[in-house]
């Protein structure tokens, strides 16, 4: 029996958390002040940052409704890499360091919890049908960058997957495009890592249904220096720590398309 998706007016949506429990804590604190009806997370609880198990109690306390990302799938099923979808040796080298750390430090209980998450979620937001996914609706680890997601593909997604609003994450950089006659595609950004613009804060997305859809990207400032020091203590790569302290990506750069790469420092 098909259940009607639950209907909301105002929701908050977070992208990848990447072990950044301090930013998640700050984001949830901010969200509590904004009178939302529900908080969602589009997957990838682990990666990059320190102390993966500190994320999970916060998700519970914040009643965050999560779906599964590629990292979560890999951790839950014991795969030997994160299946982020990188193709370059340098990207894969750093991704592997991060994955092995996170795999080692995530409890069995939390891995099992990740394994139970669905890969997609449908809700209603006012009159809009919303489909949430991690990468793209057709593949968990597909990258939907702003400069490599043509309208013709996004319109096909909206048609094929019968949705008015498509929400994704995975790339680490937020964007929103309204499609004539189809709806909205929103990459909600990530909580876990700043978005390669020289700013240390991270982002989540607030969606409000009215006569029109209101999309707000909310910056989240958090104690990034404490996170950086904890990453140092945990022996995580100095390149990751530099990103937390400067807001510039130093790794996983090769997957960036030309336009997004050009905006960064490296």
């Amino acid at each position, binding site marked *: 029996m098909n259940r009607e998706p639950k209907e909301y007016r105002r929701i908050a949506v977070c992208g990848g958390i990447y072990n950044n429990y301090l930013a998640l804590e700050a984001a949830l604190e901010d969200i509590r002040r904004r009178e939302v009806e529900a908080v969602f997370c589009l997957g990838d609880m682990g990666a990059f940052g320190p102390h993966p198990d500190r994320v999970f109690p916060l998700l519970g306390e914040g009643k965050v409704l999560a779906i599964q990302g590629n990292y979560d799938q890999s951790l839950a099923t014991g795969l030997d890499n994160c299946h982020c979808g990188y*193709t*370059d*040796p*340098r990207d894969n080298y750093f991704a592997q360091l991060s994955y092995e750390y996170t795999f080692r430090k995530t409890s069995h209980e939390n891995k099992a919890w990740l394994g139970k998450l669905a890969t997609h979620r449908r809700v209603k937001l006012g009159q809009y049908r919303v489909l949430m996914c991690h990468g793209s609706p*057709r*593949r968990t680890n597909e990258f939907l*960058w*702003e*400069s*490599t*997601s*043509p309208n*013709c*593909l996004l*319109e*096909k*997604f909206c048609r094929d997957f019968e949705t008015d609003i498509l929400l994704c994450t995975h790339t680490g950089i937020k964007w929103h495009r309204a499609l004539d006659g189809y709806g909205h595609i929103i990459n909600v950004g990530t909580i876990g890592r700043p978005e390669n613009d020289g700013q240390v804060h991270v982002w989540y997305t607030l969606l409000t249904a009215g006569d029109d859809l209101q999309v707000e990207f909310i910056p989240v400032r958090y104690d990034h220096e404490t996170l950086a020091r904890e990453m140092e203590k945990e022996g995580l790569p100095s390149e990751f720590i530099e990103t937390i302290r400067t807001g510039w990506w130093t790794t996983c*750069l*090769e997957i960036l*398309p*030309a*336009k*997004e*790469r*050009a905006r960064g420092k*490296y």
Partner: protein
Amino acid sequence: MTIPTAPLLELSTLWIQVTGTWCNLTCTHCLNSSGPHNPWLKSLDTDMVIRSIKEGAELGIKEIYYTGGEPFLHKDMLLLTAHALEVAPTTILTNGTLITEQVADHLAALAQNSPYSLEIRISIDDVDPEKNDRIRGKGAFSKAIRALQVLHSRGLLPIVTATEILRDELPEGSGMYEQFRDLLLSLGITKPRMKIMPVFSIGRMEGEGGPLLTPEMLDGFDYSLLQCSETRVVAEGGVYACPILAGLPQARLSEKSLKEAFKPCDLYHTACVTCYETGMTCKN
């Protein structure tokens, strides 16, 4: 023997072999034996390319690649780049020898005015000019380096594409990837981008047969790892399964439209084994 097939799971990547096998170089490892004289696969006319892009858009493609031959030999290449960039992110595979300051200016303007990324991939096979030119022809290295510099100076971020043709000649302990990164950094290219490809036993490297894929090898295999499961190529004569086999009769799936090429393709060539074993993709 039964020839295994690969399904088209989705059409994501549209390749356009815009100049067929017409090229101003005659590289010794060229996988489709391109060259300047009597190309066995002819260039596509401009209207045909524009029609293919339009059909690709209707089918919801994700990206477009121009290849050849040498794409910049096409008289309308800049116009065709503009058409492609109106629809989707676009990559051009080139030897770089025809990228003048003027061409680079034009490409930079097109990239600037499109919401989608324009990627220029420049082929170089070794960081040593002499070794590179042994494979690619006299003067090819210096012209390709010049192209990298003029593109970089305009804010485009070219990707160097190298095959592993000279891997055996590398000094002990040094990697191709690092060597190319170091070369690009030494040229002042601060965001070095690289793609390394295997050599295929096809074209000028065609061997005496070789192993083929069998249905047993594909039992339980994830077809999405093969680029022919998400790619089609428009070239003279129709629509083909993948960029490696474009132009070959057994790889032709349609003589007309892309839509008609939505069918399984034969994995009949020894080159299919390379893709199967390496997970190789011609994409960026």
